[in-house]
């Protein structure tokens, strides 16, 4: 569980994160959604300590991460896995070396043990026969999977994913989303995902935080989002007419009536 209290972060005199408080739950996919530039990445980088917040607290299972010394911070970081937007694989190393890197750095296991673990996580992310390939030889979806494999190789308690779907086709996106959701439940990880992908929201959004211009505008689950009356959120998440229709149909299905302020004449006609 990660508790964020009154987090603020700005660059120069521009405020990017404005007083955000939220609790990220263990064993669930916590989604941060919002338009490009709304501050999702900055928020995530504050949580993992790549940016220092201007004010506020970040508690990892009760331990305050913001005013920790470097050594304790390193200890927490060993429990964090992160998938970056561009995968951030080490491009001079093969897939196997990439995934083995954290093991080499932080364990004293034998090569055989490490290799077994690498193959185990590669299998977990459904990749085969890529051990000796370099990142440049992989497709976008495969890179993301290797990124996930590297992030979970040390059995983290917290998993951060920054835009796991960016640059992927819808089908591959879904596969990645499902993978993240499964891993989260399987190992009871506190997972935080940045996304602006509508599909992910509906598929894996156990807990959704909608950010708008650095402010937490809405919070709830993917069941509740259908009934949300927040106009900013609805404009963002159900942007196209098609999705608005889909939302209304789902609402009708579940409650027997459509409760919105759209002009329905066209639909009925």
């Amino acid at each position: 569980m990660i508790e964020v209290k009154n987090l603020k972060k700005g660059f120069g005199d521009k405020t990017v994160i404005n007083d955000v408080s939220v609790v990220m739950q263990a064993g669930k996919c916590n989604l941060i959604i919002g338009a490009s530039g709304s501050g999702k990445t900055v928020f995530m980088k504050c949580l993992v300590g790549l940016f220092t917040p201007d004010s506020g607290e970040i508690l990892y299972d009760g331990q305050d991460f913001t005013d920790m010394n470097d050594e304790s911070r390193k200890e927490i970081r060993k429990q964090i896995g992160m998938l970056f937007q561009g995968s951030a694989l080490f491009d001079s190393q093969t897939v196997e070396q990439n995934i083995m890197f954290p093991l080499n750095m932080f364990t004293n296991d034998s090569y055989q043990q490490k290799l077994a673990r690498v193959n185990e996580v590669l299998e977990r992310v459904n990749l085969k026969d890529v051990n000796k390939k370099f990142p440049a030889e992989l497709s976008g979806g495969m890179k993301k999977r290797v990124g996930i494999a590297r992030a979970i190789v040390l059995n983290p308690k917290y998993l951060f994913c920054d835009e796991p779907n960016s640059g992927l086709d819808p089908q591959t996106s879904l596969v990645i989303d499902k993978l993240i959701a499964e891993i989260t439940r399987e190992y009871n990880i506190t997972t935080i995902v940045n996304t602006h992908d509508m599909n992910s929201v509906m598929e894996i959004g156990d807990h959704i935080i909608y950010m708008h211009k650095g402010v937490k505008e809405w919070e709830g689950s993917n069941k509740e989002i259908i009934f949300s009356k927040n106009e900013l959120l609805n404009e963002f998440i159900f942007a196209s007419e098609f999705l608005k229709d889909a939302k209304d149909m789902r609402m009708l299905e579940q409650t027997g009536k459509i409760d919105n302020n759209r002009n329905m004449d066209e639909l009925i006609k």
Partner: protein
Amino acid sequence: MTLFTEFGRYLLMIKGMFSKPENGKMYWKELMHQCVEIGIGSLGIVVIISFFMGAVSALQTAYQLVSPVIPKSTIAQIVRDTVILEFSPTLVCIVLAGVVGSKIASELGNMRVSEQIDALEIMGINTKAYLVMPKILAALIMIPLLVVISMALGIYGGRLAGVLSGILSPAQYDKGLLGNYQPYNVFFALIKAYTFAFIISSIPAYYGYYVEGGALEIGRSSTKSVVVSCVSILFADYVLAALLLQ
């Protein structure tokens, strides 16, 4: 950003490098890797420029020494001293600033921009210690070695050119080499080599490590790091000469 804040950040980066390695074996491996990259990687160019600069300085010294009173062996002496004092340490390091410096800056810049540095930080690794320190150490180990090799090759190049063009005999050249030899010059050259090695590795590392932006900025910062390194080398060269050659 002002010069002072940049310099302050540079010093903080240097300070940040000193921390206990997370895993000694991995750091050692990285150091060895950098030694190969920096040392073996630039051996070829060092061999070529050293040889030619020795050869050319022999020919030009002969051309300038027209007086029949001066013995031919003086040419060898002058070649030896200019190669040891200036050409090998300074010229070679200026070239290495381009070869090694741009490599360091663009490697780190690429790692920064593609978030590989962030990925290492997240794992709980001190990236200044793991990425920057081995590069600087490797430069401090390998560049003075390259400079020594360059001295030998430069002097040999001068001998070959002098003999081939019929200016002086091998015996005359060798006699000149031994005349009025001052070991202090080699010591001085090595001080320069160590200083320049630090400049060539730490300045590009700074520019690469703190890149912001994309591919364009990587190119820009690598060019800038080479320019700043070269100017710093020339400046340090002057300061060292003023301090140590009296």
